[in-house]
């Protein structure tokens, strides 16, 4: 096949992005485990990973720009490089958010907690991790059928977000937890919601990569199509 070396460079770049994704996924796993088990030492071990992820993200951006400058990519190659940059950004942001959560867990070690709120946080963390992993899997296997389902799964995170915020805003008289922990919990809820969004966006980027269509456009067409059908 012509342009074998260019294809190899694209494959290598994609592989590097997936490797970064797996590392970020491992950080998320540690964050969830630390939250589930109250293992503040595990959370503390994650501190500082965001610097590494940002440096890796910058390297991937540079590699992508060099390929664009040298190879003048078009069509699917251009979409791939655009998607690689977009996915890399989502991975780096996810890594940073995971680190922020671990930072909050480590700093509130031993603080009194609201059990209901903590349970909501754990549930939300598991769901956000699963959405992120699925988004990365969709990107790896170009499995766009699952991208729309991922958007639906994100609705669950939005519900958990509302539930957790409600618990934060309306603490019970007994067992409301330490104020500092409640404040950190509000931030963690927000970070987890963002992590899930990043996972959904990685899936959406894959739809663009494969079809050239934005998932938002694809969804709108899909919805309008159903409306038109209903009107018939």
């Amino acid at each position, binding site marked *: *096949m*012509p*342009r074998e070396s*260019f*294809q190899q460079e694209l494959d290598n770049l994609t592989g590097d992005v997936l490797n970064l994704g797996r590392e970020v996924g491992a950080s998320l796993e540690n964050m969830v485990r630390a939250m589930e088990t109250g293992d503040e030492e595990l959370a503390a071990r994650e501190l500082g990973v965001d610097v590494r992820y940002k440096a890796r993200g910058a390297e991937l951006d540079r590699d992508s720009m060099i390929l664009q400058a040298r190879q*003048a*990519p*078009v*069509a*699917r*190659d*251009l*979409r791939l490089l655009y998607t690689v940059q977009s996915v890399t950004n989502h991975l780096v942001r996810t890594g940073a958010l995971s680190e922020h959560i671990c930072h909050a867990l480590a700093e509130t070690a031993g603080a009194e907690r609201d059990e209901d709120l903590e349970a909501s946080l754990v549930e939300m963390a598991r769901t956000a991790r699963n959405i992120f992993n699925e988004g990365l899997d969709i990107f790896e296997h170009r499995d*766009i*059928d699952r*991208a*729309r389902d991922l958007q639906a799964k994100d609705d669950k995170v939005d519900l958990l977000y509302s539930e957790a915020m409600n618990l934060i805003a309306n603490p019970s008289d007994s067992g409301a937890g330490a104020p500092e922990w409640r404040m950190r919990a509000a931030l963690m809820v927000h970070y987890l919601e963002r992590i899930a969004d990043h996972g959904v966006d990685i899936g959406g980027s894959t*739809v663009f990569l494969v*079809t*050239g*269509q934005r998932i938002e*456009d*694809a969804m*709108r*067409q*899909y919805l309008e*199509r159903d409306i038109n059908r209903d009107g018939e």
Partner: protein
Amino acid sequence: MTQSERTREEQRLTGVSRDRREGRRDAGRPPAGDNGTLGMKIQDLSAFYGGFKAVTDVSMDIRANKVTALIGPSGCGKSTYIRCLNRMHEVIPGARAEGSVTLGDQDIYAKGSDPVVIRRRVGMVFQKPNPFSKSIYENVAWGARINGFRGDVDELVERSLRQAALWDEVKDRLKESGYGLSGGQQQRLCIARTLAVEPEVILMDEPASALDPVSTQKIEDTMAELKKSYTVVIVTHNMQQAARISDYTGFFYIVNMGDPGRLWEFDETEKIFSNPERKETEDYVTGRFG
């Protein structure tokens, strides 16, 4: 999930049918949503060299005041096709064309249609610069004169050279031979010569393939200016050039060696170079062809 369920689901997700995504669409159909003025309308055009059919059944709407680029692998019929648009193809012994090419309200292949008049209305610039062995001035003035131009020739020469972005470089040596110019200047002189007879459409067959990057850039800049007044059709092997300068792109393709060339996909350039409909087009523009 069965294959048909999977296909329906894919279509629901993307809003695009598999047929359309895989390019089973009439390539000659004008790009959807385009309402530009028509420059030329080509319908079911086929070109022959004796008994050999080189191009088959091309239908294409060429928009006025736009640049249309024709790309495709060597031997797929691009140059043959473009030469059919001003009846230059039939100059080759045994060569002929079938189908219709409408310019304005005239079918240029209709009985009684004068090829000389057609070639004045549809000018052509070739791959290799081919100035006459005359002065720079006469290179531009000559064609207009023999076509009966009765106006101010000095003004015509200056205007044509300015439109071809050559005036500033040659205004002080108009009486010198056109052969004394560089390759890039000679090509722009040929463009000026074409413009002097005031055509409606300008055909360019790889006009910059023999030029250095700076001269190529000047030709490309010239084209961007020319389309304000003319309809431009260009054959190019330089994909980036097609992407840079054209508004519409047609991809010509041969399915099997010995088959005639076909217009495989025709769409807005933006579409062809970002998300073409057909796999073969994508393979070609990304350099995976062959």
